[in-house]
C-alpha cells in the first residue's frame, strides 16, 4: 500500500526521522512560519515538475493556492489533500532509501549525494548500494559507509538510518525513500519528502492518521472484493482463476489480435464465494466491455460457484460471453450456462480465445476498432 507524503511524514515523526513542521490545509496552525510549501497529496511521483508543489509566501495566499492545487490531476491521480510545510533552507540535497529488492531477496540501502531529482536519472556510480541480510539486519559498518560516501558526519546520518531501518522492519515496508534529504548549513538534516510503501498483507504497527482513500478505481474495487483487477483500454474483459493463467490468456487473446478492456484474477477467496463473484462480475460490466472471456481451471474449488455467478449476472444478457471451464463439477456447470444464448462454453483455451474474438469481430481478418 502506497502512503501519501502526509502519512509517510507522520510515520517519520513516530520513528524520529526529522521533518519540517507541517499541517493539512484544513488544520493549518496560526503559528505556521511563512514561507510554506503547499504540496499536493497524490500517490504518484513527479509532483515538482507537474507544478503540484507551490511556495506560499504569506497567509493571504493559502486559500487560493490550496484550492487551485485541489483541482489538479497528476499522472491520472486526482489531488486529494493539500499538505503545508514550513520551507527548509538547505545547503545540500541528499538521497536515502531502503527498498526491498525482490531479486536479491533482501532489503537494500541506497544513498546518493544527488538528491532532489528522480533517482532513476542519477548515474550508477553516484549511488551507493548496500544489501542488508534479512537475518542480520542493518549493521553499523553500513552506516559508516554511507557517511563516507555522502561526506556527512557519522553522528548525524547514523540516527536517521537507524530510524529508517526501524520503520522499515516494524511497519514491514517495501520502500522508504527520503528524496531529498536536506542538509542545512549547521549540518542538521531534514526529510524533504516521504515516500513509503507498506506490504498490503500486514497491519501497520504505528498508529497514525491515514487520509481517506478514494475507492473509485476499478483496481481498488476488485481489491476490496478480494480479486486482482487491471483496467486497460481494449474491448474484451478477461477473467481467470489465477495470475499466471490470466497473463497467458491475455497473451493468447492479444496474439489473435483481440484487445483487452480488463484483466481480472479471481483470487483464492472469490472462487468459493458466489456473492463475491457476482459483485466482481458487476464491476467488470461497469467498464462496458464488448465481451467477456472467462477462463477457469480448478483443482480444489468447484466450477459451480463461478458458473452460478455468471449465470445470475450475465445469463440472457446481450453481451457476448465465452466461458472456458475445466475441473471439478465441470459438466454440471456447463449445463447451468448452456441455457443462455449469449453464453458459449468450451473446454479448450485456444478455442475460447478465438471464439470471443470472433463474436466481437466476426469472421475474417480482425481489425482495430
Amino acid at each position, binding site marked *: 500500500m502506497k502512503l501519501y507524503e502526509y502519512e509517510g511524514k507522520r510515520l517519520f515523526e513516530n520513528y524520529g526521522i526529522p521533518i519540517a513542521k507541517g499541517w493539512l490545509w484544513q488544520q493549518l496552525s496560526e503559528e505556521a512560519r511563512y514561507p510554506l510549501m503547499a504540496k499536493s497529496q497524490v500517490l504518484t511521483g513527479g509532483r515538482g515538475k507537474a507544478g503540484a508543489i507551490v511556495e506560499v509566501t504569506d497567509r493571504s495566499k493559502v486559500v487560493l493556492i490550496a484550492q487551485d492545487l485541489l483541482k489538479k490531476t497528476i499522472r491520472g491521480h486526482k489531488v486529494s489533500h493539500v499538505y503545508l510545510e514550513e520551507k527548509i533552507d538547505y545547503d545540500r540535497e541528499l538521497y536515502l532509501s531502503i527498498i526491498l529488492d525482490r531479486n536479491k531477496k533482501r532489503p537494500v540501502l541506497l544513498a546518493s549525494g544527488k538528491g532532489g531529482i528522480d533517482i532513476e536519472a542519477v548515474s550508477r556510480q553516484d549511488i551507493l548500494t548496500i544489501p542488508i541480510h534479512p537475518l542480520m539486519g542493518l549493521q553499523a559498518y553500513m552506516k559508516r559507509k554511507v557517511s563516507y560516501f555522502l561526506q556527512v558526519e557519522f553522528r548525524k546520518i547514523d540516527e536517521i538510518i537507524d530510524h529508517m531501518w526501524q520503520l522499515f522492519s516494524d511497519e514491514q515496508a517495501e520502500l522508504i525513500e527520503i528524496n531529498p534529504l536536506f542538509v542545512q548549513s549547521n549540518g542538521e538534516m531534514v526529510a524533504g519528502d516521504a515516500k513509503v510503501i507498506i*506490504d498490503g498483507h500486514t497491519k501497520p504497527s504505528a498508529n497514525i492518521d491515514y487520509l481517506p482513500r478514494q475507492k473509485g478505481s476499478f483496481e481498488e474495487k476488485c481489491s476490496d472484493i478480494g480479486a486482482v483487477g487491471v483496467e486497460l483500454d481494449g474491448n474484451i474483459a478477461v477473467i481467470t482463476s489465477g495470475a499466471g493463467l490470466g497473463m497467458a490468456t491475455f497473451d493468447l487473446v492479444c496474439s489473435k489480435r483481440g484487445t483487452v478492456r480488463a484483466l481480472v484474477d479471481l483470487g*483464492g477467496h472469490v472462487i468459493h464465494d458466489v456473492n463475491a463473484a457476482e459483485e466482481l462480475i458487476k464491476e467488470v460490466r461497469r467498464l462496458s466491455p464488448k465481451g467477456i472471456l472467462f477462463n477457469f481451471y480448478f*483443482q480444489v474449488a468447484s466450477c459451480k460457484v463461478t458458473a452460478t455467478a455468471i449465470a445470475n449476472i450475465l445469463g440472457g444478457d446481450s453481451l457476448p460471453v465465452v466461458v472456458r471451464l475445466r475441473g471439478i463439477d465441470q459438466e454440471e456447470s456447463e449445463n447451468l450456462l448452456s441455457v443462455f444464448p449469449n453464453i458459449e462454453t468450451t473446454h479448450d483455451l485456444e478455442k475460447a480465445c478465438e471464439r470471443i474474438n470472433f463474436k466481437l469481430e466476426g469472421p475474417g481478418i480482425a481489425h482495430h476498432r
Partner: protein
Amino acid sequence: MPIIVKEESKVIIQGITGNVGRAFANRMIQYNTPLVAGVTPGKGGQYIQSIPVYNSVEEAVVLAHADTSFISIPPKFVKQAVLEAIDAGIKVIVIYSEGVPIHDSMEMVHYAKAHQVLLFGPNSAGVVSPGKANVSDIHDTILKQGKVGVVSRSGTLTYEVIEMINKMGLGVSTVVCLGGDPVIGVQHADILQRFEKDPETDTVIYIGEIGGNDEMLSAEIIKQMTKPVFAYIAGMYAPEGKRMGHAGAIIRNSSETAAQKQQILKEAGAVVLDVLVDFPRSYSDKAVINK
C-alpha cells in the same frame, strides 16, 4: 528416480485439521501419496482417517520420520511453521498459503537456504511426480506419468500445460510450481539442474513471468543442458508500467520484460514460445530436427 518427492518420501501436512489441509489429506490418502502425519498445535492426538495429528513437527519427524511438509495455514503463522519444520529437520517444504508477509518470506527463504532445505513458495501450488507422490494441488486424475518436466511460477498455468501434454499423448515426470509471490524460495535455475540430471525427464517446459531476474540465472543453466527446454514467459503483451514493480524500476534491471527474457533464454538455447499453445507444434518441429 523422481527429483524432489518420491515414493519413499514421508509427507506431513502442517494445518491438517483446517478445511484445505483436510481436503489435501483425503486426496493424498486416496491416491497413495506417502502421507505419514499431520501437525496442528493443540490438536495432537486426533486422527484424519488413519493419519495421526501431532502438536509439533518434531514429533512427526521423530515418530513418523517425516521429511517433507505441505503447509496450508493462515499466512501470518506461516513463518513460524516453516522455522519449526526446518529446525525439526524437514528437507522439502511447500508453502501453499497465499498472502504471506514479504518480510516473513525474506527471512524464511534465507533460513531455508542456510539449512539446505528446498522451500517452495509462498503461494506455491506444490510439487508432484505422478505415481510417486503428489504434494501439490494438481489433481491426481489429470496427471499421467511421462518424460516431460514442468517448472513454473504459476500453479493455474501449470494445469493448462498438463492438459496440453496429455492431449499430445505425453506425460509428466515431475511438475514443480515455484509460487507467484515476489520473494520465493527455490527458483527455476535450481530445478533445471535437477531435470538435467534426472533420467526420467527428457524434455523440460519452463514457464516464467515478467518481472524479476529469474531468467538471467536460468539462462546460465540452460546453456549447459543437453535436454531441450521449451520456455514461455507469461506477459508478452502486458502493457508496461501496469505491473512493473517500483523496486525493479529503481534497481534499473532492464531485463525484466517478456521480450528481453525471451531473448536471454533463446540465446541460452531454449525454444521460446510466444504463446503457451504453441508448445505442441514447437515440440514436433524440434523432434523433426533431432531426427
